């Protein structure tokens, strides 16, 4: 994390769907951001949000009730309403708390997918719009999990894509850190939902985190984008 000495530093915060469960939780998330703003007035925040907890699954279920084999394009379009709803709700809560916040849509945020539809599309980020918006607003809220491909077609980055969105945006914006806000406060040696005495792992290297990902380490986190 960058400290508070530099002017107008950009902090990228990703809010996972597991902490966005209802209207009150959006309010709590907005208060969290306000406290961060009060702590360091020089920081500007790019907030990457997932859909509300469980909504992506509900939308897929709805799609499959309509047609057994929805096209990826139609499914992505429907899914995207979940993330956009989150952007709007969080922005409204921030506005209510007096924050100069603005929500951007998928086309405004500048995440472009090349060869989308393959297992691992190449992602390019053009952050000029976000940077311009951050010059005039303390907080910019964008949807995770989605980008656009040729012709402006909305496409998802794949399951877990909101974390990837946040990392790519943080890199493009030259942030030192990317904060991923989850329903558990980090990595644990054992599942804290099962073992109340589970020890948190304060630091780990990328390779250790990858090994834990390979091993299916969930540490209590629930599904989200």
């Amino acid at each position, binding site marked *: 994390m*960058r400290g508070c000495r530099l002017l107008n530093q950009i902090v990228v915060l990703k809010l996972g769907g597991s902490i966005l469960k209802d209207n009150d939780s959006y309010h709590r998330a907005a208060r969290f951001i306000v406290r961060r703003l009060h702590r360091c007035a020089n920081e500007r925040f790019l907030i990457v949000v997932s859909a509300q907890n469980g909504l992506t699954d509900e939308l897929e279920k709805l799609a499959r009730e309509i047609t057994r084999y929805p096209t990826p394009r139609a499914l992505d379009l429907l899914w995207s309403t979940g993330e956009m709803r989150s952007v709007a709700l969080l922005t409204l809560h921030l506005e209510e708390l007096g924050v100069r916040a603005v929500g951007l849509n998928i086309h405004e945020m500048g995440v472009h997918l090349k060869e989308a539809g393959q297992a691992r599309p190449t992602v390019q980020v053009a952050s000029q719009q976000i940077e311009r918006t951050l010059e005039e607003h303390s907080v910019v809220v964008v949807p995770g999990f989605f980008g656009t491909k040729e012709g402006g077609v909305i496409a998802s980055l794949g399951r877990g894509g909101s974390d990837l969105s946040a*990392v790519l945006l943080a890199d493009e914006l030259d942030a030192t850190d990317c904060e991923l806000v*989850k329903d558990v*406060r980090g990595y644990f040696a054992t599942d804290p939902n099962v073992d109340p005495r589970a020890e948190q792992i304060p*630091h780990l290297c990328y390779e*250790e985190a990858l090994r*834990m990902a*390979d091993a299916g380490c*969930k540490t209590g986190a629930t599904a989200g984008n």
Partner: protein
Amino acid sequence: MPDVKLVQQQAIEAARAARLRLVVRGLDEAAAASIVSSDGGVAHGGASNGCSTTAEIQAQLARPMEEAL
């Protein structure tokens, strides 16, 4: 849909490629976070970075909040 991993592999790989530090945390700012970085948090940052060590980062994360609201 099945549960997903705490942080997805693609995101970790992208962070590693960019040498971007990941802070995995909850909404409770008083609680400790987990930090994923190139050296596992032993030494971080430099002149362009206000925090140079993980201890400083953790201290910043745990700093008591102003009662803004």
